[in-house]
């Protein structure tokens, strides 16, 4: 038990990997403490999947090195494989087979005898709410059920390290919550989880530490609290009734919050980051003050919200470019010219 939850689960130094001209990993360093959930946060094309595939022994790095529980992912791949499992971004189970068949297949491959594999499959289906669906082909499952059977398959042998590549992308809020609950249970039982996500709130909800990834590199690392306070813990979104009042509203809000205010493409909308490092007031207090000042200035606010910064805002703050993939950004630049 202690070996599973102490020390470092993953140590990577200077990992590089290119696909033709694309540098998917450009010198990535990671250290993931065992027994925790670690989040890799980044936009499309940041290199998250590539990093996970290298660490899961599916892909050889061009340069750098990585160890999982002290075993080199290239030289001692088999030792690594004995301790990890992977739920890929796209289904990593056989969609033509039924849920039960998939689990029995994997159980047998992990060395269980047929009756034990069958029993394990039934247990897992029950725990993941898939007993009724067990006899159906996986291709007929809903998105949420698919994710669950995929994760069930990954914990068949209670791995020491579980890779979850974007486990909730494309799921509805309920299915997303179910996956989160499962992840929490998994880590509570001593399995280290390395999960990738595009959502700051997901990383925030689950991860003990987060690495923000961009262009194949870690550009910021820390606890969710540390990251957020470096960015500002919240964002105020305002929509005015009258677009004509926006310039004045901007002045009032800037004065109230002491931070720059961003004018959105929508002519009645403004946003501002609050709760940053420089402020000793809580984000909600700052927001309340801004609202009061606006009311006093006679500016009518139709819609107001205080939320966490989005991934895009984190990116803006960390890199001064928004979190859009290269090709889209190129198109935008093109359009701007």
């Amino acid at each position: 038990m202690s070996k599973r939850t102490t020390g470092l689960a993953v140590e990577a130094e200077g990992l590089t990997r290119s696909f033709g001209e694309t540098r998917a990993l450009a010198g990535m360093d990671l250290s993931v403490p065992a027994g925790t959930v670690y989040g890799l946060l980044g936009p499309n094309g940041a290199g998250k999947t590539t990093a996970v595939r290298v660490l899961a022994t599916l892909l050889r790095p061009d340069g750098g090195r990585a160890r999982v529980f002290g075993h080199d992912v290239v030289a001692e791949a088999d030792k690594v494989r004995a301790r990890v499992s992977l739920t890929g971004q796209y289904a990593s189970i056989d969609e033509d087979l039924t849920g039960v068949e998939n689990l029995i297949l994997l159980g047998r491959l992990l060395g269980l005898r047929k009756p034990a594999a069958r029993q394990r499959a039934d247990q897992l289906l029950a725990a993941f709410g898939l007993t009724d669906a067990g006899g159906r082909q996986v291709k007929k499952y809903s998105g949420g059920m698919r994710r669950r059977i995929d994760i069930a398959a990954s914990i068949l042998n209670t791995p020491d390290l579980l890779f979850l590549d974007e486990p909730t992308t494309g799921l509805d809020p309920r299915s997303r919550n179910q996956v989160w609950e499962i992840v929490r249970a998994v880590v509570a039982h001593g399995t280290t989880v390395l999960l990738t996500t595009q959502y700051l709130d997901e990383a925030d909800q689950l991860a003990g530490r987060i690495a923000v990834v961009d262009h194949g590199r870690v550009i910021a690392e820390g606890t969710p609290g540390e990251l957020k306070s470096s960015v500002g813990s919240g964002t105020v979104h305002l929509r005015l009734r009258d677009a004509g009042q926006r310039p004045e509203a901007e002045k009032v809000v800037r004065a109230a919050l002491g931070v720059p205010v961003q004018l959105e493409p929508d002519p009645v909308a403004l946003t501002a980051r609050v709760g940053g490092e420089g402020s000793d007031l809580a984000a909600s207090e700052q927001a309340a003050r801004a609202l009061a000042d606006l009311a006093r200035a006679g500016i009518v606010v139709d819609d107001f919200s205080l939320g966490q910064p989005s991934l895009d805002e984190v990116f803006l703050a960390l890199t001064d470019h928004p979190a859009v993939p290269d090709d889209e950004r190129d198109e935008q630049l093109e359009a701007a010219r």
Partner: protein
Amino acid sequence: MSDTATTTGRAPSVYVPSAEALATVLAPGERPPRPSALSASLTFGWRALLKIKHVPEQLFDVTAFPIIMVLMFTYLFGGALADSPRDYLQFFLPGIMVTSVVMITMYTGVGLNTDIEKGVFDRFRTLPVWRPSALVGMIFGDLLRYVLAAVVILGVGLVLGFRPDGGLIGVAAGIGLLVVFSFAFSWVWTFFGLILRSEKSVMGVSMMVLFPLTFLSNVFVEPSTMPGWLQAFVKVNPITHLVAAVRSAMAGSTDPSNTMWLLLWSAGFVVVFGTLTMYRYNRR
């Protein structure tokens, strides 16, 4: 079809992860010993059988195609090349059986290529099992299709008047040789299935290899009727050795020289293309 399909008539039951239920499956149990190479391969073979069970349409290729081949060539060439289609059939059936089955081996590559596209191989490749087992198992499943195709062709042949002198044992021996060769030859396609980008290109390459290989052989006519340069190719073509060996087995005799060549070719395919395949498989 959806989450609620199984609960029609009742209120859709929503899955709520329960800490206790998850605790029972998450308690780290004893790790069972790693399965042997054979056991892992057979388990992957079982997967191939399950896929046939769930997607039986894939058997169409191994049944309809051979039937069409036999009928077409028997009546197309039978009258011209022998006194009657029935006479030609005695010579031709073992050859067309070999042609059909060898052509079907290309689906191994096509199947592997689509499988890998879908991502399930990512999981297989992170399992601590004997590395080639996923591919060996897949080919085990394909062997069943080869046997099935051979039996279908034999059936059609018997109906049309094929009467092998070797009897049941001779026919079984012939099919056995064919299956051994096909197993070995399948490794050519696993390699192409891994290196080529799409299913279509795998098909394209397969056709380019298979047509000359099967037609420039002794399948349709005796090589003695061909020009010298062509005879030279036909003579070294593994399909020629295979057809000769299968023909004599089915006719109730043995052909040690061709059988030996055939086994040498088979071993060569496994060693060369098996190695290349595993090299690619490990390095994707």
